[in-house]
């Protein structure tokens, strides 16, 4: 049987949901097809051990675009908001920072951090306005493109001479040089370096890690929050918004291929063989999978497939979930502070050394760790008195030399727990169950090539005008009727909804024209 829709969205990740909700709000008849049993993609909450639930992939909300919340009237409530980051020190003399304020460092550092944060947020705001618009095409004479470019130039100059000079200098530079020039405290330097390389295949010394840092600040100024019930509840909320607007969401319905007829996208065919017709196919799937698997290389010209093939999306961030029979003791950490974001990155050199092996397809013997205890502020996630620990651990390259064998997994999990135990002595004895999600697992569970959060490395050569690839930065793929709305498109990953929103707006604008 076949059924016709105004638009079919493949994948109910948060961007897919945002996009379909906005299309539906605009009166389109929208069908959303999700391979997994539940919506959310990489933004879900699921049980990983008996009675213990966790945000399985993304676990912190950085930059959910306010515009998205407003336009979709989201009613998400938060378990924790404006979280602090606590850079752990083995001797208990931790460094705490949040929105421009830092404690546990010298007065000099306090003021230079305030200044650093002010400058960075200023640049991040500038960046943010462009994260929320479709990147202009270059070298065209389209009024819209030229206008956007002119505005970009104007906004740059409006920074003022000095700030503009600094911005032009910083945007390509690495975080390592900045933090070493500005700060004395190794802990602060390490934590900020980690912030910049989180989820990337970059080390603090890699140029353009300032850009990734700015990206993290964009949207929420780096304010951190966790939805009550974990990321999944945000996804549910988005799904509700989409349904309320009239979209149909079918889960457990993997798409086998995008049907191409007379050189244009004409519908989709599910794994079960069902066919749905639409002249607007919007893919929330990463660009590689979309073109190479769903469309098929033979339907697009070779130059384009080569570029798609060249997109770098080597995931390096693994998730480690621990079920604990109680809170561990962390030297020098007050009980109340278990609700904050804890970071293990003693100094910038440590982070760089953790990155080195990743370049050769090896996992870090001494990983950098981002820890949260979601159950601390959200008891429902664990049995009473018990706790869930959700960690992002780097670096664990997706394509590990020799593959992610059981031995390799155990070795890496051991390295992580030993690292954590150095700060939380005796935590081993509290672990009742654990789950390690390597990028390879993330690839399998969430269908993201390379298990890369951003659906493609967040680097200047894959950013703005050239994201996901040259000549396709406007959400439109070079196959009529096919659009991209996932993190692989501009601006990139993070639970922000920006890509989904931009895509929806672009599609509506194009079709109304």
């Amino acid at each position, binding site marked *: 049987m076949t059924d016709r829709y105004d638009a079919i969205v493949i994948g109910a990740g948060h961007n897919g949901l945002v996009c379909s909700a906005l299309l539906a709000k605009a009166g389109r008849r929208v069908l959303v097809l999700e391979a997994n049993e539940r919506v959310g993609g990489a933004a879900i909450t699921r049980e990983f051990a008996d009675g213990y639930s966790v945000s399985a992939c993304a676990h912190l909300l950085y930059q959910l675009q306010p515009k998205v919340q407003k336009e979709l009237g989201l009613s998400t409530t938060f378990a924790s908001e404006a979280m602090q980051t606590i850079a752990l020190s083995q001797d208990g003399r931790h460094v705490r920072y949040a929105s421009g304020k830092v404690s546990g460092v010298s007065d000099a550092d306090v003021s230079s951090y305030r200044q650093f944060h002010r400058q960075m947020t200023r640049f991040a705001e500038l960046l943010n306005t462009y994260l929320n618009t479709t990147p202009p*095409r*270059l*070298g*065209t004479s389209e009024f819209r493109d030229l206008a956007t470019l002119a505005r970009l130039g104007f906004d*740059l*100059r409006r920074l003022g*001479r*000095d700030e*503009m*000079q*600094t911005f*032009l*200098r*910083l*945007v*390509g*530079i690495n975080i390592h*040089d900045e933090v070493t*020039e500005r700060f004395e405290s190794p802990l602060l330097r390490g934590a900020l370096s980690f912030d910049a390389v989180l989820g990337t295949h*970059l080390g603090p*010394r*890699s*140029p*353009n890690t300032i850009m990734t840092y700015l990206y993290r600040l964009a949207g929420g100024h780096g304010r951190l929050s966790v939805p009550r019930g974990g990321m999944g509840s945000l996804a549910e909320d988005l799904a509700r918004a989409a349904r309320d607007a009239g979209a149909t969401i079918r889960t457990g319905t993997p798409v086998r291929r995008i049907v191409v007829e007379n050189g244009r996208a004409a519908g989709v065919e599910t794994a079960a063989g069902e066919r749905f017709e639409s002249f607007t196919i919007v893919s929330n799937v990463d660009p590689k999978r979309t073109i190479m698997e769903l469309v098929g290389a033979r339907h697009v010209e070779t130059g384009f497939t*080569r570029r798609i093939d*060249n997109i*770098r999306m080597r995931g390096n961030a693994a998730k480690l979930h621990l079920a604990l029979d109680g809170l561990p003791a962390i030297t020098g950490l007050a009980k109340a502070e278990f609700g904050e974001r804890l970071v293990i990155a003693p100094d910038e050199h440590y982070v*760089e050394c953790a990155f*080195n092996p990743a*370049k*050769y397809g090896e996992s870090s013997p001494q990983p950098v760790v981002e820890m949260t205890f979601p159950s601390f502020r959200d008891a429902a996630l664990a049995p009473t008195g018990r706790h869930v620990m959700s960690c992002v651990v780097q670096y664990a390259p997706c394509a590990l030399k020799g593959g992610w064998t059981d031995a390799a997994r155990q070795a890496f999990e051991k390295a992580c727990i030993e690292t954590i135990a150095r700060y939380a002595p005796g935590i081993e004895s509290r672990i009742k169950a654990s789950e390690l999600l390597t990028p390879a697992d993330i690839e399998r569970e969430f269908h993201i090539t390379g298990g890369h959060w951003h659906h493609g490395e967040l*680097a*200047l*050569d*894959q950013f703005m*005008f*050239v994201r996901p690839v*040259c*000549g396709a930065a406007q959400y439109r793929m070079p196959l009529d009727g096919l659009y991209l709305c996932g993190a692989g498109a501009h601006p990139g990953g993070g639970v922000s909804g920006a890509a989904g929103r931009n895509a929806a707006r672009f599609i509506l604008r194009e079709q109304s024209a």
Partner: protein
Amino acid sequence: MKTYDAIVVGAGHNGLTTAAFLAKAGLNVVCVEKNDYIGGAAVSRNLHEDWIYSNCSYVCSLLRPEIYRALELHRHGLQVTPFGGSLTFMQNGDYYGSYHDPEVAYRERARFSRRDADAYERYRSDTMRQCRIIRDFLLSTPPDPTSFRPKDLLGLLRIGRKFLEVGEDRIYETIRFWTMSVAEYLDEYFETDVIKAAMSGSGIIGTALGIHSPGTAYVLLHHYMGDVDGNVGSWGFARGGMGAVSNAIAGAFQSYGGELRTQAGVDRIIVRNGKAQGVGLENGDELSANIVVSAMDVKRTFLQCMDRSDVDADFYTRVENFKIRGSSGKLNIALDGLPTFPALPEGSSLHISDMHFIDSMERMERAYDDWKAGTWSKDPYIDMVIPTTVDPTMAPPGKHFMSCFIQYCPYQVEGRDWTDREREAFAKTVIQQIANYSPDFKDLIVHYEVRTPADIEAQIGITEGNIFHGELTMDQLLFNRPVPGYAQYRSPVAGLYMCGSSTHPGGGVMAAPGANAAREILADLKRPNTVPENFGDD
């Protein structure tokens, strides 16, 4: 106290170039040099018996032909001999050669991968397209994007047009090329490790970056954008060593009536009420002029030869933060004869070529990890040439001079100064690396000179011995080089100019910074311009 129209500090190739063009315009110019020889890092030195060492820079390619012609360097004895091919020895006993003859080159690549052999033409034309874009801006002063002066707006417009005229797809490719790493750039064309490794070297020579560091693809250009007799991308030896380049420029300078003073180290640049007044020499003498041009790197100029109070604090910190890092060393070797390389077939043209010993991308990157850890690469990337194979004038008959450029070599070892033991260990590392492929090499060594970044700093004066006078990263290119707002060869001090490689377009024996600086100075003096325009390509 002697008075001149202009004083140029430092008789390196850029200082001499500025001096020459100013003298050509009729100015009374003196060029002062701290060493008892001229040339800075473009120098030939007789350090052992009858051997002549190009003991810093060792090959010639980037020198702008416009300057060569304008200064008639051929008349002053400069002769550049092209030399062919390069070679990478492999650990499995094989080798990968790159030849000038496209047919041979194709067959060689096809020996490893037909796909790579086919991809090369695409690689070459894409890369050369990037070269042409940048080559147009070498002999021009970068516009200031923050200024509203017509000159700058026009300059921006020109860059914009040049950038846009290549067409939409090309624009995107250019953006990517400027921002990506050399490893990723090569990955997009080639599959064979050794072929990529052989090419990636050009992306990291002289920089404190690894082949996986974003921005290194651009550095490729600094090794491709040169030419010999108009053959873009080809390399050559200056007959008599690299000193021949400096000597020829000096010859031109003197033929225009310029005065050259060696053993005249500058102790300080004299600034009175915000204006440059002259220089004070180490021997106590003072020379006075309203124009002082520094060919020294920007750090040495402002942090060592001036008072902190001479420039505003903001500028001072920006100079302090200018990145100029020691990352490469040299080993100059006098040989009793030509070493043999069993891996090479008898009579192969590659016996006369640029030799390398790293055959995988992983080894390339690991060499960088050692540098990050504060030590020299234990398995270093060596760029080894034997100029005497094409230029017999540099060694006694039958003997040879070998120049080894080594990446990576730190300015300090784990934060401490180099000890003699460490310098020897460093030399041994390099010698062993070569000896692994040439059994008789060690026995042929009659003398060698070790040059760590610290040695180069001590002798030449370049901060941390950085061959480019500052990293070639995006934050230090074009209008950001050396310091945002001062990329037009002028400094915050009236009458004080910069003409060294710290300025646009950066290092390499190119002489473009020197020429551009001269143009700006002559413009300020309302003198007729003696500096040639860009020839432009095709």
